[in-house]
């Protein structure tokens, strides 16, 4: 029988790899704005559940992996994710005591910040970012939060992970 710790080590990488696959799943070129920032959401979830074990280090590594796989500029996603997870860590007590609606509002803020820094570094290297479409992934990600939280809670119960 595996220990809870080793089961976390099992479920965490698998969920991250799944999120990375979904992040590069090809969407039609015009529909790419509708893709939720799954990896950011997932990391927020994990950091909320296990704040002692997981943090910005994981965010940095996952971000680098995302940069390599997506072919974006090296460090772009790592930067945005580290900042989003850092803010998440600062507000962890608040977030845990919130109800779902308040959490969704807070996720808008976190993912918004994530995308702000993501596209800030995109602008820095000379890309054009339409300002209105910038909000699409933020709002869609926030709408995904209850779904993702439900699914991950279910998986955690299924694999009997400790509630930290």
């Amino acid at each position, binding site marked *: 029988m595996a220990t809870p710790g080793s089961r976390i080590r099992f479920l965490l990488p698998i969920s991250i790899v799944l999120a990375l696959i979904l*992040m590069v799943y*090809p969407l039609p070129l015009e529909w790419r704005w509708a*893709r939720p920032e799954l990896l950011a959401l997932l990391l927020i979830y994990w950091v909320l559940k296990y704040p002692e074990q997981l943090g910005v280090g994981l965010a940095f590594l996952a971000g680098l992996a995302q940069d390599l796989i997506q072919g974006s500029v090296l*460090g772009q996603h790592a930067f945005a994710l580290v900042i989003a997870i850092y803010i998440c860590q600062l507000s962890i007590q608040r977030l845990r005591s919130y109800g779902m609606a308040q959490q969704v509002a807070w996720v808008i803020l976190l993912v918004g910040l994530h995308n702000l820094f993501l596209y800030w570094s995109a602008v820095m290297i000379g890309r054009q970012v339409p300002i209105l479409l910038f909000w699409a992934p933020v709002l869609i990600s926030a709408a995904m939060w209850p779904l993702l939280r439900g699914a991950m809670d279910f998986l955690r119960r299924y694999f009997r992970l400790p509630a930290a």
Partner: protein
Amino acid sequence: MRAFILALIALVLVVASSLFRAQVDPLKSQLDVIAVPFYWVTDLPGRFDAWFDDSMVSREALQQENRSLKGELLILQRKLQQFATLAADNARLRQLMNSAELVHDRVLIAELIGVSPDPTEQVVVVNKGSEQGVFVGQPLLDAYGLMGQVIEVNPYFSRVLLITDSNHALPVQINRNGVRAVAEGSGDLYELKLRHVSNTVDVKVGDLLVSSGLGQRFPVGYPVADVISILHDPGKSFATVIARPKAQLNRSRHVLLAFSGKQASEAR
């Protein structure tokens, strides 16, 4: 404190990888290997679909397709008969004018296996890499026109910047009269803008733009776009000319990588 240091490292990486591209790119193409299984997985539905289309077809449908393909082949072959004499004519005329001969391009058939998830860039991934001789700057075509050029290559796949990316521009000429221009991507998939076309230039709606071969990156004479609107604003020094790309940038799965010109012989 840790977050600050990590964010700083990430930011330095961003700046370094855009400033020192020559040093970072080889390293990045090595590391790209970890992306291969991800594109393999995300391409599974597409391949399953193709397999399904191939194997789950009724005999009648196949026969019908065969008939229509034979008809199409006949029509194309008839066109090709004329083309042979035209090509010979063209070569003779070029000799008379002492200009360089047109070379035939060798092509490599590739398949689109991914689309860059970053909505601020228009980059697609094709399943041929440096092992098949693909090189940076190589033009990508589909059955209808020019699609883009290779910007990153590793042994297993390569990334292609589409002509409509807002960072892309290519030299074109109007097929009707040979007027040269630069077609610039606008970030919109169905729009190219012509830069610095003065108000007196002879350009009409419906004109076909073909690659002019200037800049030595794209081969001469491939269709690029149709002019769809021209706006002469007296207040501006240049006309606003909008063109729609001929290539089906959003739909083509089967694409061609062309080998031609100087870079191809260098890369080979």
